[in-house]
């Protein structure tokens, strides 16, 4: 009897490299994210997370390597994938002079959303934006803007969602509600989420897989529980600090080989 083939990963990155003149920002990065799961790229500033996300989105062209999303090659057929993806980042704004509703209407048009007014109303309610919908985006608080950016990212009910700091600027209560919303969204739609976050508690809660980056490379990866166990730490934040400060596993556990001791090809340069 033939075995059922596993579905292709929603995101597949293969030997992805980005260099700027003499700076190697991302160095032969390979990973995949299974459909219906949440994965995180973690790392200090300049580790290459944003560069990697930008290449997955097609905003940045890789020097070498391939990216496919939903089985679609992002270098050659990006416009076939973009309607099924979306993105949110606190570092990319929505026009401040437009009201929240106007911004969402414009993006509903760009994504070809049917019954846009209804979808916008749903999102406003779910993300607690109803009271601010007719205010210019520039007058919203940082937390309200983060929720608006998330509403924009969810307008087209994407199969793949790339989120940079999805709960930045949110109070703990709102942050928790957004995490619950994202979990529900992922589970009901079998959506795939790749996020970059410095909130380790968030990553522990949302992600089944974590890729730790330093100097443009994945230096370790696994589930949050696996990483915590492997590094003998109490939480993911301590694991992050070990990796960011280059404290090798082998230094603390001489019987284990640290991620930096795997070979000379690990030594990339950060952006």
């Amino acid at each position, binding site marked *: 009897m033939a075995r059922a083939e596993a579905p292709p990963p929603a995101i597949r990155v293969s030997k992805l490299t980005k260099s700027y003149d003499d700076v190697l920002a991302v160095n032969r990065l390979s990973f995949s994210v299974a459909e219906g799961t949440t994965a995180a790229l973690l790392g200090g500033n300049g580790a290459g997370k944003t560069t990697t996300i930008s290449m997955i989105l*097609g*905003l940045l062209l890789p020097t070498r390597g391939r990216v496919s999303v939903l089985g679609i090659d992002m270098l050659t057929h990006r*416009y076939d994938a973009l309607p099924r993806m979306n993105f949110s980042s606190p570092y990319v704004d929505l026009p401040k*002079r437009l009201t929240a509703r106007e911004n969402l209407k*414009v993006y509903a048009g*760009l994504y*070809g959303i*049917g019954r846009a007014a209804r979808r916008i109303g749903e999102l406003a309610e779910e993300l607690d934006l109803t009271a601010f919908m007719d205010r210019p985006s520039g007058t919203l608080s940082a937390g309200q803007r983060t929720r608006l950016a998330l509403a924009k990212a969810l307008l087209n*009910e994407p199969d793949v969602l790339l989120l940079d700091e999805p709960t930045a600027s949110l109070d703990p209560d709102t942050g928790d509600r957004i995490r619950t919303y994202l979990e529900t969204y992922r589970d009901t739609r079998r959506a795939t989420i790749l996020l970059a976050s410095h909130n380790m508690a968030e990553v522990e809660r949302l992600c089944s897989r974590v890729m730790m980056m330093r100097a443009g490379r994945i230096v370790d990866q696994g589930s949050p529980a696996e990483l915590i166990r492997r590094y003998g730490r109490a939480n993911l934040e301590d694991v992050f600090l070990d990796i960011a400060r280059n404290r090798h596993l082998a230094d603390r556990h001489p019987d284990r080989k640290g991620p930096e001791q795997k070979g000379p090809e690990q030594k990339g340069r950060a952006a």
Partner: protein
Amino acid sequence: MSGRAAGAGTRGAFATSRRIRAMVLRYVYLYRGSWPRILEMAYWPTLQMIMWGFLTIFLASKSGFFVQAAGVLIAAVLLWDVLFRASLGVSLSFLEEMWSRNLGHLFVSPLRPGEFVAALTLMSAIRVLIGVIPAALLAIWLYAYSIFDMGLPLIAFFANLQVMGWSFGLVVCGLLMRYGLGAESIAWFAIFAVAPFSAIYYPLSVMPDWLQWIAGILPSTHVFEGMRAVLVDETFRTDLLINALALNAAYLTVSVLVFLRFFRSARERGLILQIGE
């Protein structure tokens, strides 16, 4: 849930027109909520027309030429403003995206660069009409001169100057993508580089031969020469129109290619997410 974008619904002429409409809507929302932006569109064309109108009245009292060809200066002012505003209309709409740090969102949406270019040019045409029509109407009231009396040739002149302005504007947008907001001032002065050679206020024949050759490769020169032929000689020169159309076809093709090349360069250099205030 009600929204989901259908895969098939993102292709084809209908989807393209819907995305272009969405971008135009984005600028309509912006202008609707910002009266200084609307005022800016009509302010300079109106002031220019008032000044040059009085100059025309003064010159007409001193020169038989201006009595015979009444309105030639006012028409030149208004048509020059069409060219200037068409260029500025493209680059200012693009600058709005840079100022608001919105390019990252736009370029991860299904909006294609060609559709973005179409929206920029459409907005440019709307901006030109908002800017120039009040000035043209004011000229009728103040000086009893109507540029609309030119009739159908006016449409040809207007269209050619629009297209030339778009070409310049698109190249400026490319430079803005490559060099960021440090190159913002180019948007304001780039088109003025062609003003001395476009035979706007004086005929081509007053230029030295070598300069006439340079002027000849500008579509605007053929438009303004054509305008004088209509107003002074009362003839419509189809040869000048054909020259302008051919040159504009080349200009627009090159400018779109330049825009796309700079867009690719911005993607190679990782500039799109960095562009901002």
